[in-house]
Structures are given as structure tokens and as C-alpha cells.
């Protein structure tokens, strides 16, 4: 692939090194030349860092020799805020953790509260939760796909995926009234039943989504420049991924078959028929590709849950001043980026004694200082994009 003119021009990482090696072989005196290492601050104000992520890179020419993650620019002290709010008051804050997958945050928090208080969830609500959560997962993955290709200068691909995402956000808006920061899944069920004509709307949106994804796939997945910049770049071995506690699509792209929806089913996932895509390469391309495959599985899940949607109530009402018994819970869900866990400690009052979020992105970026050395800057950007981080949940 690198033989073609486009591939080799773009796959600069390999060719620059090769040219340098050739030059050194031709003139031994070049070996004596030392270049000075320097520091480059990538971010926090840089579009390719997806928010306010900041990497302090040590560089030798184009090559990275050291990388340090600097985070905390978006730290809002949410865990401390939770301690001075009632359980219901804190619920809307949760969507601001992972703001690209708001409703999945809602779900994790609601599940923790339900376990803490022993609250039953009506069956219809469980189905609606899967529908809305999988729609949210599609929207989140579409952002990942589009932001990854625009990081690699593919502006057209970005527009395709973002337009498709807008269709999904319209559905979420129809359900909850809010495009991004939903407060829809609450302890005891969901806030409201699905709107009229929702099924028809979903059907239309999915037709559009399929068409756009096919276009996107044809535009990007086989594109030589895209392949040249992502194939074999930023490879994370399965053992390394586990060592760093990585979860979610990033782990599954490294060949580890672990998806809580399948392996520790919550809600009604055990009643639904779906596959968990697992890829073996562990490189940036596989992390991109697995999102594309997961979108199709999520579409399947939404359609299945739609077909099986039972009638009935959608919410178990809780008293206004809800006080769970003293105790603590840790509940985890499979979010769009990995395992999201809520640790809630109750002392019997109306406010949590302690609330902690286990956020997948926070742990996933831990691998970068080990992964970055040896990469060039453009490879680092591709690798970072493929890890799909959200600073809202990293910094909390």
C-alpha cells in the first residue's frame, strides 16, 4: 500500500525514518550529529485534543520520546457537589460527565440508586431504557468516527457522520426535550413515555443512518490515506490494555471479549439477541472500525427492543424527600467508552454521603505515556482520536 504515491507521501512516519536511515548509512558523520530534545504542549487549546486534554510531549525532531498527561482543566468538583445535593437534584448533573453520551450516565446513576433503595423498575421502562441508551451510543460513536476523520484532515467524512448524528439527536430530543444533556433515565424508570409516532420516526432515521453510514464507510474505511495513517499505528496489545484497566470498545479492539451487556447483563440485555464485535489488531484503525460495527449492533438492539415493547407504566414514583437506608453500592454499566461505575454511600439522609464516578476515559488515557514514545506527532493525534476521550468524564 505504501508503494503507491499517495500512500507513501502520507505515511510520512515510515518514509522519513527510512530516508534518515539511508542518509546515515551513506555518511557516517551524520551519526555524530545530536539534535536537541524539546517540549511541545499539545493542547489544552487544540482541536485535536477533543476538549481540554493536554499532552506534554518531549520530542526529538518529529518523534516523541516522552509524554505526560496533564488533565484537570475541566474539573468541576462534581463528586463534592453531589454531597450537598439531594439524590434527585444531582441526577441532571450526571449527563455533564460524559456529555456525548448523557443518557448512559443517567442510567448508571439510576441503577445505583435503585439498588441502594431496592426500587423496582417497570418492564416497559426497561425496554425504553435500552432504546434510548442504544440511540445515545450510536450518537456517541458517530461523534468518535467524525472527529477521528477530521483529525486526519478528512472534512467530508466528518460532515457525513455528524449529519447522521443530528438525526439521532432529534430522536433523543423528541423523547426527552433535550439534545445532549438528557435527564431522562431516572431512579424508578424513565421520566416520560415515548412520544407518539416514535417508532415511525426511528424507522425513518435508521433508513437515513444506514444510507449515510454506507457512504461514510465507502469514503473512509477503504481510503488509502486513512489506512496509511491508522493501520498499525498506536498498537495496544491485549495484555497491555488489561494492565492499564482499559474497557469498552478500546479493549475489544485489542482482542479482549468483554462487554458488560453480554457478560454481566443488566436491564433486559439478557433477553435481547446481539453480537459483541471483537477485533484483534489493537491499532487505531481497529478502534475506529469497531465503533462502526457497534453502531450496527446498536441499531439491531433498538429495533428488537421496539418490537418487544410491552405496555404498562414507565416509572415507579419516589417520594419527594427520598431517604435510602444507610449503606453503599457500586453499580456499573457498559457506557459508550467503557465501564462506567457509580459508587454511592448513603448515611440515611436525603443527600449522598459520598458519590464517586469510575469514568472509562480517565483510565483509558493512562496508557498514552507508554504508548506515545516512538510515535510521530501525527501518529499521536490519530491514536488519541481513536481512544475517543471525553474530558467531561475525565476531569469530572
Amino acid at each position, binding site marked *: 500500500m505504501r508503494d503507491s504515491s499517495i500512500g507513501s507521501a502520507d505515511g510520512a512516519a515510515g518514509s522519513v525514518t527510512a530516508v534518515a536511515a539511508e542518509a546515515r548509512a551513506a555518511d557516517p558523520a551524520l551519526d555524530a550529529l545530536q539534535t536537541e530534545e524539546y517540549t511541545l504542549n499539545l493542547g489544552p487549546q487544540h482541536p485535536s485534543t477533543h476538549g481540554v486534554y493536554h499532552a506534554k510531549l518531549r520530542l526529538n525532531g518529529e518523534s516523541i520520546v516522552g509524554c505526560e498527561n496533564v488533565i484537570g482543566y475541566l474539573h468541576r468538583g462534581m463528586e463534592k457537589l453531589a454531597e450537598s445535593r439531594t439524590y434527585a437534584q444531582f441526577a441532571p448533573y450526571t449527563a455533564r460527565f460524559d456529555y456525548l453520551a448523557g443518557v448512559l450516565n443517567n442510567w448508571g446513576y439510576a441503577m445505583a440508586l435503585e439498588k441502594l433503595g431496592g426500587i423496582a423498575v417497570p418492564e416497559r421502562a426497561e425496554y425504553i431504557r435500552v432504546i434510548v441508551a442504544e440511540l445515545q451510543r450510536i450518537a456517541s460513536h458517530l461523534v468518535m468516527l467524525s472527529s477521528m476523520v477530521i483529525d486526519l484532515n478528512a472534512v467530508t467524512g466528518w460532515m457525513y457522520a455528524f449529519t447522521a448524528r443530528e438525526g439521532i439527536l432529534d430522536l433523543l430530543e423528541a423523547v426527552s426535550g433535550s439534545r445532549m444533556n438528557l435527564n431522562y433515565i431516572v431512579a424508578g424508570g424513565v421520566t416520560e413515555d415515548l412520544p407518539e409516532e416514535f417508532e415511525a420516526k426511528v424507522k425513518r432515521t435508521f433508513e437515513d443512518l444506514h444510507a449515510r453510514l454506507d457512504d461514510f464507510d465507502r469514503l473512509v474505511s477503504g481510503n488509502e490515506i486513512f489506512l496509511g495513517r491508522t493501520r498499525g499505528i498506536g498498537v495496544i496489545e491485549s495484555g497491555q490494555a488489561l494492565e492499564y484497566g482499559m474497557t469498552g470498545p478500546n479493549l475489544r479492539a485489542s482482542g479482549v471479549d*468483554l462487554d458488560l451487556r453480554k457478560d454481566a*447483563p443488566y436491564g433486559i440485555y439478557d433477553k435481547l439477541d446481539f453480537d459483541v464485535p471483537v477485533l484483534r489488531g489493537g491499532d487505531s484503525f481497529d478502534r475506529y472500525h469497531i465503533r462502526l460495527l457497534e453502531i450496527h449492533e446498536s441499531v439491531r438492539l433498538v429495533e428488537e427492543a421496539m418490537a418487544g415493547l410491552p405496555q404498562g407504566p414507565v416509572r415507579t414514583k419516589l417520594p419527594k424527600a427520598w431517604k435510602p437506608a444507610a449503606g453503599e453500592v457500586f453499580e*456499573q454499566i457498559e457506557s459508550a467508552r467503557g465501564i462506567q*461505575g457509580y459508587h454511592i454511600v448513603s448515611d440515611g439522609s436525603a443527600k449522598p454521603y459520598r458519590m464517586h464516578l469510575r469514568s472509562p476515559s480517565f483510565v483509558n488515557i493512562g496508557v498514552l505515556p507508554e504508548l506515545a514514545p516512538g510515535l510521530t506527532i501525527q501518529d499521536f493525534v490519530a491514536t488519541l482520536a481513536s481512544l475517543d476521550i471525553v474530558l467531561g468524564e475525565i476531569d469530572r
Partner: protein
Amino acid sequence: MRDGQDILKALGRGSAGPAGAGSADGDGPAGAARTAIAAARELAVRPSELVEVLASLKGLGDFVLIDIDAVDRPEGFDVAYRLLDRGGEGPAGIFTVKARADRSDPRLPSVMSIWKAADVMEREVWDLMGVVFEGRTGLKRILCKDDFEGHPLRKDYILVRTPRFPVREELRPAEGAEGGQR
């Protein structure tokens, strides 16, 4: 009171001494430990046992460290290590190992040598809760800025409202002046 005694025993730790190789179910110590873990889901250990227990759990092959967090209680800091039990053939789940650090001088051994993932997690717990992890390097603030004082998630941390736009001293109204306070 420590309900994890059988797990410790199966792992070959704790007061009961090492488990014999010929354990009852024929699976050896690892099998016995898996059975005990499946029943308990949680284990409280002394800080001195922490590293050994976590290393033994890692040795069983299915456990991955996914989170460390702490709760500030009057009795001390309860630090919880969440291990993802990949479950082998069975269902996955979370297994929690807890250790309590002293309230006045909280110190725990670092587990970074067991799982590299512990690096960012320990830094977070130190930053927000002030629990010192010993035997590692680079324990510095991660979410708060470097010159931040105190550990904000502690219960005795006093929240002070900082003015959004700091008022320069010379512009501050004189003591007792009218209309200076909002």
C-alpha cells in the same frame, strides 16, 4: 468479623496459613479461591496484606483493576479497590478489596507495581482525599492544580466561595462604607 477469611485462606494468606495443595474440590488453591470469591464479592484486608492479596488475585488470571476510590469516615479512610472479575466461563462482575487507612495520617502501600492502571487512580485518591500511597514515584496532583492546598473531598475541607472576578485591594470599598456589599 472479617468475612473474607476463607478467601485469604484459599489464596494462601492470612492467619489461617497457606492452603494445602490438595483442597477439597480438586481444583487446587486457585479453584478454592474462585469459589470463595464468587460467594463473597467483597473482602476487607489490613493495609499490610493489601499488596500480597491483590498480587494473588491478579495471579488467578481473571482480575483487572478498574478503579480505586476512598470514603472519608470518622474511623478512617475506606479505600476500595474495584477489580473487574472477567469471570472466565461464568458471568463477569466486580470484586471489591477494601483497606482502611488511618484518619490522622492516612498511608497505604502502592499497588502500581501490580497494575500500571493504579498510577492515575492513586494520584486521584491522593489529590482529592489525601491518602498517601507509599513505595511509588510521581504521586502528584492530577485533577486539582499543582499549587492547590488541601484535599477537597475530605469531610473537614471547608468550601470557600472564591470571587469570580478578584477585586483589587485598592478598589475595595473602605470598611463600613455604604453599598459595598452585595
